Each structure stands twice: as C-alpha cells, then as structure tokens.
C-alpha cells in the first residue's frame, strides 16, 4: 500500500495540459516545407526518395516516410517543421506544393466536417483495423489514449467492437490477406460512419505501394474524411486531426 502511494506521488500529474497547443521537440520532423524551387535538388531528391514522394515542385506527405534523407542532403530546398499539425481533410491537401507567386509552399488544412460535427462533436468512437501495419502507428494510436495524451478527455476513444463505433481508423498499407477482414469490419459499423487513414502506409501504401502482397482496391471506392500522415503518425497529430475535423480545435 505504501509502496503504491510512494509510486503515485512520484508519478505526479502526467497529462499534457492542452494537446492541441503542446510543445514538441524541435527535432521532430512534422509538416514538410519546400524552401525553394531548385531544379537540380528536386531532380536528385526525386531519385533519392524511397517512396517517390517528391516530384517537381512538390512533396507528397501522404507518401513520405519521413526518413529525412532529402532534408539532410538538400537542406536549402527541403525541411520538416517541428509542427505536428500535419493532417488534412483531403488527400490533395497533403501534397505540399511550391507556389511561385508568393515564393512559399502550401500547408495541410483540416476543414470542419459539418455532418460529423453535428453527430459526434462530444463523443466520437473509432474502431481500429491494423491491416499490415508495422505496429508503430498502432502503438502511437494506443498512446493517444494513454495518461500523457489522454484523448479520452475529449470523448475520443478507440472501441473494441465495430458495433460500438462511429468510424474506422485504418493503420497499415492493407495486405491482400487482410483486405477481406478490413471490409467486413467496415460493413459492421452502423451508418453514418467515417473512415480515417492513419499513417503514411494507410494513406498511400508507403514503402509497400508496389508490393504484390498489398491490395488497396477497397480504399479506392471508399472515401476517407481525414488523412493523418507520419511514419508513424504522432499522437499529437492524431488528436489534432480528429479534433479539427469535428470543429473542436479552437
């Protein structure tokens, strides 16, 4: 009993006061930034990028595995801000584009989804399906509910059954062997429901996009409401993305 009390006292208060405005270590590679439209750097980076995320003059965060090779080799052209607000409500929004008029680049945006906001503003339950996820996104999604990030405080939770869920949060590139179970889980969630793609693999297949063991057919016919990039997606990115989607990021 006393051991437990001592441990509890030492533990202190662990929750991050406001995960939507948290400070993150400056070494975190968050939102991608294109600093200039350098033809040669882009040509070389295009060769270098393991997931073909870079083309002239854009960087697709939905494909990026955040290995950082481009920003280390060409620091004058590419950088990643320590900004966890990486999610986007459209797939296109994840493509960071160079805008020559202003000599800046685009940033990902989450637009409030009015339909979801009306129904799920105060309570949003998600069922996670890991379909060939490497367990990094799964651990980060799990951590979103832990004592530090505690998304439960906002009424956001990951539930054990699709019957209890308002949506599905997918991790992993979707292996052919999991495609059926993923679809069945989706069908078991009552309407209305929302699909969220968590992590680069779920968004684009990432490193596995060209593997013969991957089957993303179902995703092509099922639109997602939110895309949260990262390898893995950071808990702060997950919470920020979902809260913004529900119009609660104020």
């Amino acid at each position, binding site marked *: 009993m006393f051991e437990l009390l001592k441990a509890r006292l030492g533990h202190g208060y662990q929750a991050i006061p406001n995960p939507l405005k948290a400070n993150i270590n400056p070494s975190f590679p968050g939102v991608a930034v294109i600093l200039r439209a350098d033809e040669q750097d882009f040509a070389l980076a295009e060769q270098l990028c393991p997931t073909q995320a870079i083309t002239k003059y854009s960087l697709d965060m939905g494909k990026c595995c955040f*290995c950082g090779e481009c920003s280390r080799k060409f620091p004058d052209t590419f950088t990643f801000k320590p900004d966890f607000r990486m999610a986007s409500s459209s797939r296109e929004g994840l493509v960071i584009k160079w805008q020559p008029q202003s000599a800046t680049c685009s940033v990902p945006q989450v637009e409030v989804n009015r339909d979801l906001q009306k129904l799920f503003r105060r309570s949003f339950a998600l069922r996670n399906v890991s379909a060939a*996820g*490497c367990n*990094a996104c*799964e651990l980060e999604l799990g951590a979103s509910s832990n004592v530090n990030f505690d998304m439960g405080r906002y009424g956001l939770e990951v539930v054990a059954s699709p019957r209890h869920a308002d949506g599905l949060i997918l991790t992993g*590139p979707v292996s052919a062997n999991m495609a059926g179970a993923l679809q069945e889980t989706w069908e078991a969630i009552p309407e209305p429901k929302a699909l969220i793609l968590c992590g680069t693999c779920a968004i684009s297949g990432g490193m*596995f996009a060209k593997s013969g063991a991957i089957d993303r057919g179902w995703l092509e016919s099922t639109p997602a409401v939110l895309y949260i990039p990262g390898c893995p997606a950071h808990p702060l990115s997950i919470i920020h993305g979902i809260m913004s989607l529900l119009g609660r990021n104020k």
Partner: protein
Amino acid sequence: MDNTSSPHNPYVTDLPKLIDNAGFFTRIRQLCALGYIPLYYFGSAKSILHCGMAKNNKEMEFLCTGFPKKGAYPALSTDFPAFHIFERELFEEWGILPEAHPWLKPLRFPPDSKVKMKDYPFFNSKSQVLHEVGVGPVHAGVIEPGHFRFICHGESIEHLEIQLGYQHRGICKLMQKGDIRTKMPLAEMIAGDTAIGHGLAYCLAVEALCGVQPKQSVQSIRLVALELERIAMHLADLSALSGDIAYLSGLNFFAALRTTVINSSLAICGSRFGKRWLRPGGVNYGISAQQNKVLRDTLDTFEAQFNRSSKALFGDSGVLNRFDSTGSISLQAAQELNMSGITAKACSYEVDARKDFPIKEAESFEPVTEQSGDVYARAMVRYREINQSLELIRYLLSTLPDNSDIESGDIPQPNKAKMAVSIVEGWRGRIVHVLISADDGSTELYKIYDPSLHNWFALALAVRGEGISDFPLCNKSFDLSYCGADL
C-alpha cells in the same frame, strides 16, 4: 568456423561450397546433437538449400546443398522441433516436402499461394465435449491482426492454434529490389516496434557485404539506441500486462515512463521509435556532449520512478496472484523450439546474442534469467533487463567522445557473390538477417528472422490448461510480432 573471413558478427563469407544432400542433413543432425542452434534454414531461387548453425561467435557453420532431387526429404522436425517453422516456410515457398513433418501447414499465404486463407486446415478434435472459440484477425485492442482458434473444455484451453499471415507484405522481395544500401526505411518497417533491432541487423549485414566497418563510437551510439528501444518496449509490456489484470496504476506508471524514454530518442533523431537514427555505414544523428548529459540525467530521474513503480507492482498480492504460475513454459520446450529473448530467458534458457554473438568486442555480459517460465518470470526478466540496459547505456555514454562525430558518408558497392549474416539481440530476442549478393553485385536474396517466428508456437503451448480468460495476459507476456513473423 568454415569458409569465413570475418571472425565475428556480422559475418561475411564466400558462398559455402555445395555438399551432397546426405552430407548436409547428416551434418545438421550432428550439430544439433552438439548443441548448435539453427540461425537460418531456407531455399533460394537458385535451388540451393541453406542452413546456418551456431553456438556462439567461434562455433558456427554455414552449410549449402542442392534442392533434394525428388523434391522431398525426411523432415528434420521429427527429431529437432526447432526446424518445424523453417520447414513449413520451405514447403510453402518452394514446394519441397519435409516427409513426416508433424504440422505442415501454410505459414504466410503469399500472393501465389495455392491454399487460400479461408481454407486453412485447422486441427479439429471432433469431440462432443469440447468447443471451439475463434478470435481475430481483428482484435479488441489496437494491435496487429492474427487468428487464434481455441479448443476448450469448459473454460479451460485444451489446445490453441495460431494462424498468421494476415500481415504478409512481401518485405523480403522488396528488400531484394534495387540498391541494397538504400533500404534503411524498409528495414525499420520489418517490425516498427523493433525499428532499431531490425535496422541495426540490416546495417550490419550491408556493411559486412560492402566491406565497411564503422568506428567504435558509431557502434556505441547504435547500441545506446538498441538499449533505449529495449527499455521502451519492456515498459510498454509492463504497462499492458498491468492493464490486462486491471492494475491501472501500473498501466499508467509504465506508459508515462515509456513516454519519457521514447521522447529521449525523439530528441536525438526525431522519431519516438528511433527510426531514421541509423544508416548503413554510420548513424544519421550523433550524441553531442550536451545531449549525452541530458540523456543521462533523464535516465537517472527515470530510474528512481521506475524502481518505485516496479516495487509497487511486484509487491502487490493481487498482481502476483495473477502473474504467478500462469502460462508456464518449460526449459526443455524453450530449447527444443529454438526460443530466444525474454520468453526463453524467463525459463532459465540462457540465450542472448549480446553474449553469444557480440557486435563489439564486448566486456563480459551476463544475461538475466528467471526460473519459473510463467508470466511472473517474463515480467521479472523485463524489469531486470531494464535495469541492466540502464547500466549498459550509462557505460556506453561514458565512453562516447565529446561531440561524437557521425559517419554518414556513402559506402562502397556491395562485394559480389558473397553472403553476409548479422545477429542482433532485439528486445524480443535474436534477430538474424541473411544477405546474399549475386555475381553482378545485385541482391540475390534477403532473409529476415524475427524471434517471434519461433516463439509463437511456445505461446500455444503456454496457454494449455489455462483459463481462456487468461489468454490476453499470456499473449501480452510474450508480446510477439505479427508482421515480424509474416514479413
């Protein structure tokens, strides 16, 4: 050691000479009798059967033979169960039949598999008294997919069959495509919770193949990363074990402590999982004198709180009641199944690549072991290994030069027609990577072995006779990788 030119892990050698089938299998049986363990056993596209047997850095043999003429041979598994999973893989990949194999079922269901997943041949008791419970592939928690089929007598588990393959991503094939030196991000995804373990095994294999040896200081940084990963994942497991028995204080204590540790990795390399930290030939991020001090201070604070929390955990009679004698595995089973890591050490099987196959000329390293082989022992090994890793990290950090520079230069082309083998003690256990280069220097073959491949079967044995409600606890105490096994 035969045919090898590098005296210790990672190994690089010319392709071993082909011997005849009879000689190959006889030698394997002899080595098994001498207490060697199989590191790898697989067929290649060139119709060659490879086997690596070892006891430690000095006692190691690489063997090769052609595929058996009739496409069949007397199974090794009947005498040496350690081979059962290798032989299942061999049969699935190349159709070579290990005759009289006791459990020759599909393993991963790759795209060209003849057997469909829904036709998996589950063991069926045909009993009127027993009933079956199927769980998965989608589980209640936020975890990877796999299917568990229990045969129960009332609440008690008589038999568990584990069907994997849902996570199969074809990662070995992807490793073989293109320049092997650029595969770091992929290696980190073999199992994302073991990014450093598998990443380091990949780096070592590539470096051996390309004839590069990084400096001692670089190896030290990598080992710091490896031990940080071990601490972080052991904490995740202690947290989840607490959660599974509704000891919510432990669930939260260890989860918060894990945050502290993985944020230390983030501060150095930008990833809470240590992704992008290592690279073949060096590391992307060094540890500056200031980071060194911050890390040591963080770990000091961590250690005090960790030991307080552990004392509370292991001093709680309710916790001990659930951990004690649950999901036991015998030493004999551990040895026969070629188990490694926490689960093996928890039944006093003293295997640890840090001792048996050291990467650096190591100081003496003694693995932590426990006797009872149950959930308690597996939790205890984790607790003691965290303290051991703290000591290791402190030692490594004290040897790092100030502003330790990093080597991130390009490494030379791979040597042609060579084989490289690397062994790393990841947090789950022994990781083995095998890399073979073709005559033109391209990658002919990349093989990955996560300890989970062997340990999954042990979980099935551990739950026999347990209540089905204790399965989550047993499963978490093993915490095996689905994608590491399914690749």
